[in-house]
């Protein structure tokens, strides 16, 4: 399989994740879509790294994985706080900052 096949697979996963982010109402569901998009990025990084014979891409993938985990932890903590204050995690109803 050439590099193209991996890139296309990653593009499909990215588009599916984007669809989830755009259509989900629940804040946790939106976070799951973001997870899918970040995964697609990781596939791209590792594929480019392998096909170019340069390990820098894999080091990058390692960093994105670790940062994603931190992002999920903070994001879900925020979701829990929002639920405590507003009693809902529906993104449409969290419009406190709307003028």
């Amino acid at each position, binding site marked *: 399989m050439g590099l193209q096949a991996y890139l296309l697979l990653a593009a499909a996963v990215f588009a599916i994740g984007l669809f989830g982010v755009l259509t989900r109402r629940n804040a946790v569901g939106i976070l799951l879509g973001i997870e899918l998009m970040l995964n697609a990025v990781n596939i791209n990084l590792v594929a480019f790294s392998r096909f170019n014979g340069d390990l820098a891409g894999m080091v990058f993938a390692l960093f994105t994985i670790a940062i994603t985990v*931190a992002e999920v932890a903070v994001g879900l903590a925020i979701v829990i706080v929002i639920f405590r204050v507003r009693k809902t995690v529906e993104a449409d109803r969290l419009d406190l900052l709307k003028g």
Partner: protein
Amino acid sequence: MTLETAGFWGLAAVLLASSLAVVLTKNLFHSVLYLAGALVATGGVFLLLDAAFLFGIQLLLYAGGVVTIVVFAIMLTERLVGERIRQTSRRLAVGAIVSAAVFVGILMAVGQARLPTERPPLAGDVTRGLGEALLTRSVLSFELLAVLLVAALLGALYFARNDD
């Protein structure tokens, strides 16, 4: 058909099917379980690309860590039984159009680029090379990552703490 081709198509099928299930299924809890499937399939793709160490990281951090945190968050914000856990989607048509446009855009960019079809032979052990790169060339970013993780941990604790 070589083993790599068969593995790629099998993993691609699993990955795409479970990704679609993540964004389409009604039950949020099932979404997370499908996400775990998608993450493990992604790990399999890493394995196909000779990145065995990243496969292990993917299983430990994503499929183990992230899925567990998300399950806890769902348990804290939804009732596991009953109607609350059913989630709905909105503006399906708009979402489908935008994501299809993004996909076609990437498709055209990938189609025009000249990409290698053969991977170069491995120059030594990948895991060993990764470890050496982490602790020599990118050691500063590696240490910053540790600081970031501590900050994220403290931040999450601060947000989620009980006020009483």
